[in-house]
Every structure is written in structure tokens, then in C-alpha cells.
């Protein structure tokens, strides 16, 4: 009897098979319905006529008619619509939602679209990296996109493949290193990135200016060079201000989340930095304002002064009492530049990191009292400075901000470290003002006062003030 039921169990009966297949069908239908619904909703949203665009154009034209010579105005208003429609396709790695990385890119898309009436953009969100190629393909075949912008590191190789396959289209990859300009991709591919290390250094100055415990913490996502670079810049800045104030070195600790966004984890990590190491200023690389919220909670409810920052957008509302400053991005001007290039047939493959001072109307340093630090400008800029930062340090932050517009000041230099050479945790001099080590792994030492792209890109070491170890990938 038992044997019989045993064999029965192993054989799939017709009933069971039907159960499985109907299950699969229903499951598929449910899932497809949900996904389809969302996609439809978003498509509707993105296809909705950009009303703001029309108004801005008319207004601008009207204004010009009044103020500028009439002939010039007429010429301009007539030529503008002659730019043939430019179809742009974007691929996002996450949901657009209303926060984080993909959201920031989508805001950039809207910003650029608004300023370029001939542009008509479409996007596909939550594209897993292995499916990037087919997503690009569908933007080209279905949307007839002339310019494709892919916004995740993992899309790099598929983007380069597609660039080779479609030489009459243009491709921009964000956060990678392959482009025609760099010589490792077709000429119709560019790479670009909005880089934060300068802003992290300024955050560090603010941190060192306000810390009471002399300990700062960093809640970090993944141990990759980009994050390591930001941690180092932050800690160098914090040490600069703290050492100048007290004569003592800053102590910095890092916890790793191994995740780009996970509010629950970020909370746990932030709490452990506060309670275990007595850190009173926390910077972070995580896609939510969780760390700022935790700082606010400690400050307002738990009787412990803890500070934190904005990351990617102005997050003051999440920590009105704990917000020092922070780094904010606007991808719009960058995208607008590529729109113009493609629309006017002036494409040139480029490899750019936009930094402080890029895409701002006035690309010169201003005096401290006229500094624009803390105001939206360009692609990367400083969030508003909290008045709690002592005025001499506000001035210092502004001075450095202005200097960096012209790249006069570089955080990874002895000047950014109180004149001392920058050492790693083992005591090895990494930057001495005349030479620098490209990476620990390569061990190559190059001539030059400031780090080049390779050294920033491959950074695999921690500055000496960090007392946590760097996990080896």
C-alpha cells in the first residue's frame, strides 16, 4: 500500500499537471496584468503633453519681442520649430518612483525635455542589466529613438554592442568608462557621470566643523571605488576642519550595507555607528534619507546631537534639525547638452565627469560673500548650509566651493590635508603633491600634483584617519 502511494507520488497525474499549468497561467496573467497596468499608467504619464514647454517658449518669445530687436526675435522663433523632432530613449535600472537614482535621472530627463521643445522622450524603467540590449533595441525599433541614454553601470557593455550595431544612432552611458573618446567603444557612444567627491569633501569640512566627539561615521553601500573615493574625500575634509579646530586627528568609521537601498539596514548601520563609536556626524551612500532620519530621531527624541546630510536631492524635510548640507544632482543640463549635439548634427564622443562649476552660467570663482554654495546650479551642487556651521567654516566651505569651480583646489592633494601628504592606512604616502599612486593593486606611481581619472576611478585604499577596514572585493 505504502509502496503504491510512493510511486503515485512520483508520477505527475493529469490533475496535478493541470493544476500546475493553470496555476502558471493564472499567475502569469495576474503578474502580467499588474505589470501591464503599471507600465500603461507610466506610459500615459510620460506621454502626457508637456504643457509647461509650450508656455515657456511663448513667454520667452514674447519677452524677446519686447526687449530685443524685432528681426532677431522673428528669426529665432521661426528657426526653433524647424529642428526636426528628436526622439530620445532612456533606460533606468530601478523604478522611477519618487526617490533615489532612477528618479534623479527621470527628473533630469524632464528638465532637459522642458528646455528642448523638439525633444520627445520615452523611458523604460526597472530594466534588469541582462535585458538592457533588448530594451535598447525596442527603444530604437518601436520609438525610433535617435539618442539612447542608459543609466546604470551594468548597461555599459550592452550599450557599446548596440552602438556598434546601430552606427546612425547616438548613445550615452552613465557611470561607466567606455566611449569613443576613451577609445574602447564606437564613436557614437559617450560616457558621462555626475561626480560628488568635491562635494563630499565640503560635507567633510562641515562635519569637522561641528563634531563634538571627533568621530564621524559613514554608512556605505558597496565597497567599489566610487564609494571609497567619496568616503576618503569626506574624511579628508572632516580631518581638515577638525584638526584645524582642535589639533587632533578625526576618527572615522565605516559600515557596509552591501546594498544600494535598504532603509531598514541603513537604520541599523547608522545606529551602530552612533552607539558603538559615538559618531555624531554621519555621511552615507544609500538611496534613501534614512541616515538623516535617524540623526533627526537622535537629535530630537534621544537627547544626542547627531548630524547628517542630503544625498542626491534636497532632503531637509526629513531632518530639519539634523541637516548640515549635502550633495545634490541635476542630470538635466548634461542631457540637454547631448540633445543639442544630436539635434544639430554636431555629435562628438565625449567622456565627462561633471563637477562643481560645470554647466553653470558663470564659470568663474566668486568672492566668498557672493558665493553660490548652497544654491541650485549646474549638475552637482551643495545643499543649503545649516547656519549652525560656525561662520568661519561656512566661509571656508564657500571659498573651497568657489575655487573648485575653476579646479584650483583639489581635495586629494596635500593642500586638502593641511599641507601633509595623504597617507593610506598602512602609512604609505599616496599623494605627496608631486606624485601619486594610481591604485594599491597596480602600485604604479605617476607624476602630477593631482589625481587623474585612473587614480580616482580605481581608488582602492582608505586614508589613514579611517579606522575601519576596507573589504576586498
Amino acid at each position: 500500500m505504502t509502496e503504491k502511494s510512493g510511486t503515485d507520488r512520483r508520477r505527475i497525474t493529469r490533475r496535478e499537471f493541470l493544476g500546475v499549468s493553470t496555476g502558471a497561467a493564472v499567475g502569469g496573467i495576474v503578474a502580467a496584468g499588474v505589470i501591464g497596468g503599471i507600465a500603461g499608467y507610466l506610459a500615459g504619464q510620460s506621454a502626457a503633453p508637456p504643457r509647461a514647454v509650450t508656455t515657456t517658449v511663448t513667454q520667452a518669445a514674447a519677452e524677446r519681442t519686447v526687449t530685443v530687436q524685432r528681426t532677431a526675435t522673428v528669426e529665432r522663433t521661426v528657426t526653433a520649430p524647424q529642428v526636426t523632432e528628436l526622439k530620445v530613449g532612456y533606460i533606468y535600472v530601478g523604478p522611477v518612483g519618487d526617490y533615489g537614482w532612477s528618479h534623479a535621472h527621470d527628473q533630469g530627463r524632464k528638465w532637459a525635455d522642458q528646455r528642448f521643445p523638439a525633444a520627445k522622450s520615452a523611458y523604460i524603467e526597472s530594466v534588469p542589466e541582462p535585458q538592457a540590449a533588448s530594451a535598447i533595441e525596442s527603444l530604437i525599433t518601436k520609438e525610433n529613438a535617435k539618442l539612447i541614454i542608459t543609466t546604470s553601470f551594468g548597461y555599459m557593455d550592452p550599450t557599446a554592442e548596440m552602438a556598434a550595431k546601430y552606427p546612425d544612432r547616438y548613445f550615452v552611458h552613465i557611470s561607466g568608462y567606455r566611449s569613443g573618446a576613451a577609445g574602447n567603444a564606437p564613436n557614437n557612444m559617450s560616457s558621462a557621470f555626475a561626480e560628488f567627491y568635491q562635494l563630499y569633501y565640503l560635507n567633510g569640512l562641515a562635519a569637522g566643523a561641528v563634531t563634538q566627539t571627533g568621530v564621524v561615521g559613514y554608512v556605505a553601500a558597496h565597497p567599489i571605488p566610487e564609494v571609497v573615493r567619496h568616503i576618503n574625500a569626506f574624511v579628508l575634509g572632516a580631518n581638515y576642519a577638525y584638526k584645524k579646530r582642535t589639533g587632533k586627528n578625526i576618527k572615522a568609521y565605516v559600515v557596509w550595507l552591501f546594498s544600494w537601498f535598504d532603509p531598514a539596514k541603513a537604520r541599523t548601520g547608522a545606529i551602530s555607528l552612533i552607539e558603538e563609536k559615538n559618531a555624531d556626524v554621519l555621511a552615507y551612500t544609500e538611496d534613501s534619507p534614512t541616515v538623516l532620519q535617524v540623526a533627526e530621531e537622535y537629535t530630537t527624541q534621544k537627547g544626542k546631537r547627531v548630524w547628517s546630510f542630503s544625498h542626491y536631492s534636497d532632503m531637509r524635510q526629513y531632518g530639519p534639525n539634523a541637516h548640515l548640507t549635502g550633495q545634490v544632482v541635476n542630470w538635466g543640463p548634461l542631457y540637454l547638452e547631448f540633445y543639442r549635439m544630436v539635434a544639430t548634427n554636431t555629435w562628438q564622443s565625449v567622456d565627462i565627469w561633471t563637477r562643481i562649476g560645470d554647466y553653470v552660467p558663470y564659470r568663474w570663482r566668486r568672492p566668498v560673500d557672493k558665493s553660490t554654495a548652497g544654491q541650485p546650479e549646474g549638475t552637482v551642487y551643495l545643499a543649503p548650509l545649516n547656519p549652525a556651521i560656525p561662520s568661519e567654516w561656512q566661509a571656508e566651505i564657500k571659498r573651497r566651493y568657489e575655487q573648485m569651480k575653476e579646479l584650483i583646489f583639489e581635495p586629494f592633494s596635500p593642500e586638502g590635508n593641511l599641507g601633509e601628504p595623504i597617507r593610506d592606512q598602512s602609512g604609505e604616502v599616496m599623494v605627496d603633491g608631486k606624485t601619486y599612486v594610481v591604485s594599491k593593486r597596480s602600485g604604479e606611481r605617476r607624476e602630477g600634483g593631482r589625481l587623474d581619472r585612473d587614480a580616482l576611478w580605481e581608488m582602492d585604499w582608505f586614508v589613514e584617519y579611517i579606522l575601519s577596514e576596507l573589504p576586498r572585493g
Partner: protein
Amino acid sequence: MVELSWIEGVLALTVQFGTVYLLASLGEIYAERSGILNLGMEGMMIVGAAIAFVFTNALGHLLSLVSVVLIGALMGLLLAFLVVTLRLNQVVVGLALTLFGYGLSGLLTQPAIRARIMRALNPEVPEVRIVTQQAEALRAVKVPVLSDIPVVGPVLFSQNALVYFALIAAVVMWFVLFRTSIGLAIRSVGENPSMADSLGINVFRIRYVTSVIAGVMGALAGAYLFIGYQPFWVEMMTNGRGFIALALVILASWSPIRAVFGSLLFGGVEVIQFRLQLFGFAAQTPQFVLMLPYVVAIVTLTVLSVESVRKRLGVPEALGKPYYRE
């Protein structure tokens, strides 16, 4: 010498983090005890979190939690309808429910849709509550007298309402499952439904009820993750914790009381691994510590594969099988 306040801090956080897993696994235990493998736990959690986010900002905590319970019950009913009435494959249905939950929660929290829902629920809702991604967290409620006891006080008696609820629920659910006739009925349905049926137990009704319990507890787990632990909404914020709860059920070998200890272990590992990182212990291999609960789960599964152990612990024999009345 380790300070007392350090232990208190770590344990209190462990209980807070563990509650996410505890709530979810309690619901799952009831479902699995009655023979339903609910892989949709993750979906139920994320919907619970989304509802908690939208409804708390519109209506406040109490009504928000009531709505979470209702939506959880609905998802439980949907699960029961698909796997009990339609007898569809439980694995497929569970995974579909998870995807459905991700989609639904994303939809509900879309800025435009969320604004509409919130204005419909409460026309007076201030604009700032509509645009924000956070909500007010549940405040910790100190139990008088008991919260002054060293260690035990801060760890167990200075938590928010949902933590207390989870701990009490664990005890009550254990009692019902092992000491009452209802519990016996649930277990017998999971062991041998046709035998239970012949004894006059309504197999379908029991499975409907346990599915609803799973849905409610799952939704509460998600709601707790949001308003009880870290009140910031991001899509897919549960990050697979519903599946971790499934592993916990196995580790707890389907006992609500063992689930309490299991959830403390799983929560504790998440808390401790950051401390270890700061001590410099696990700096090179924090993943190793994070892996430990799964190692324990795998070992448990291996042990459970031994027939005699299975019999003693009472692994539901009919788990994952639809019931056909002959």
C-alpha cells in the same frame, strides 16, 4: 568588560529588527501547519508596508493598522481562493502573489495615485503629508514598573505596540495551536486532510482561515517594517525579508515559540554584523555573518529530512498539496 547599556542597546535593537521576521513567520506557521505553503509572504508584507505608508499619513496610526489588517485579510482570501478552491499550484500562486504585491504596492504609492487615495480618505490631509516619503513612526510605550528592570526592561518593555503585539501573539498562537481543539484541527488538516475531513473537520474552512491569518500577519510585518522600524518608503523595501521569514519557519520547525527565538537569531545577526564590522572582526567578510542564519536553516532542513526527526517535530505531512475531496 562589556557595559550593560551596550547589551541593552544591542538586544533592544535585535528585538525591534526580529519583530519583522516574527510577525511574518507566525502567520506563515499557521498557513503551513494547515498544509498551505505561502510563498506570497513577501508580497503580503510589501502591500502591508505600502498601506501603512499611505494610510498613516492620511488617517493616523490606528486606522492605518486596521486597513493593513483588512488588506492582509483580502490577500489571504485571494491566496486561499487560488490554492484551496481552485487548487492551483501553491508555488506558482505564491510567487505570483509576491510579484502582484510588488506591483500593487508600487502602484498605490505612485505620487499621483497616492495623493488621490489620501485625499479621498481624508480631504483635510495637508499637502506636506502627501508629498513626503516618510510617516510618523510608532512611539515606544514604556510598561510601568517593568521597564525599570535592568536589561529586561529596555529590551522587552520599552518597545512600540506592534512589538508587544508580536510577542503576545506568539504565545497565544502557540497555545491555540498545541493546546486547543482548533489547533488540533489545523494541524490535522495539514497532516492528513482526508482523515481530518472524515472526522468532520471542514478542511476548506480551516485552510481559508489560516490563509487569512497568514495574510494579516504578513501585512502587519510589512507595516511594522515601515512604521515600527524605519519609516521611509521605497519600492521593494522589504528586500526579500518575506522569504527570510519562510526560512525562519523551517528553522523554528513550525512552532510559534521557537519562531520567537528564531526571529531573535535572524534579527540579531543583522544587528551584530554591523557591530562586528566596527570591531574590525568581520570587516573582510561581513557576508559570512549575514549567511549564518541560512546555514542554520539549511542544517535544520537537513536534520528534518531524517524521517524520525520529522515525526517528532511534526512537519506538516500534507504541506503544499491541494486537497481533493474524494
